[in-house]
């Protein structure tokens, strides 16, 4: 039964190229579909360009939203990557 999970994160750093790459790698380890929501924009965690295009800056809050069988673990892991980004 697919579930959905959302984890808010206050970004410690801008969501720029390197953190976006790390996020894609983290999300790829899960079966769930992972999205990052920033204001009215959202981006699939498979696309590094979409994530950079969110324009999410240090101090902004984004929501990591996962949908799928392993949604809870996926959202948690991806949120952790964002929380520890430099």
């Amino acid at each position, binding site marked *: 039964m697919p579930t959905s999970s959302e984890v808010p994160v206050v970004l410690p750093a801008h969501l720029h190229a390197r953190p*976006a790459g790390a996020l894609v790698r983290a999300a790829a380890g899960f079966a769930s579909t992972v999205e990052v929501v920033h204001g009215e924009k959202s981006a699939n965690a498979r696309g590094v360009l979409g994530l950079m295009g969110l324009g999410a800056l240090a101090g902004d809050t984004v929501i990591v939203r996962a949908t799928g069988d392993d949604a809870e673990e996926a959202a948690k892991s991806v949120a952790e990557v964002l929380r520890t980004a430099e």
Partner: protein
Amino acid sequence: MADLVGIVLVSHSEQLAHGLRELVLQVATPDVAVEVAGGTDDGSLGTSYDRISAAIDRADRGGGVVVLTDLGSAVLTTRTVLEDRGDEHPPVLVDAPFVEGAVAAAVLAGTGADLDTVVAAATEARDAHKF
């Protein structure tokens, strides 16, 4: 995990190709094969049939190869190389912006994604907005 898809960067400029490779490897995992074919055989501005073919050989780790180009004759020379090689599993020349396409492709290649997925990621870069 299956063999990773390799990436080839074809540019008129040796420096541009190497600079992009450096950038791409910062964003993607360093275990992705990102190979460059920049400049002519003597390193001046232009494209080299031999450098492109050699870069494809180096990038091929069994998972397939995606080729990105900068401008004009880089596309033409690459097409000639691909036709002449007649590979059983031909490298895929992608119509995408050089920088964005390379970054998107390499990041997905680093996750172990298959050739079709990496090609799709690079192609989607055509519609990606920087902001």
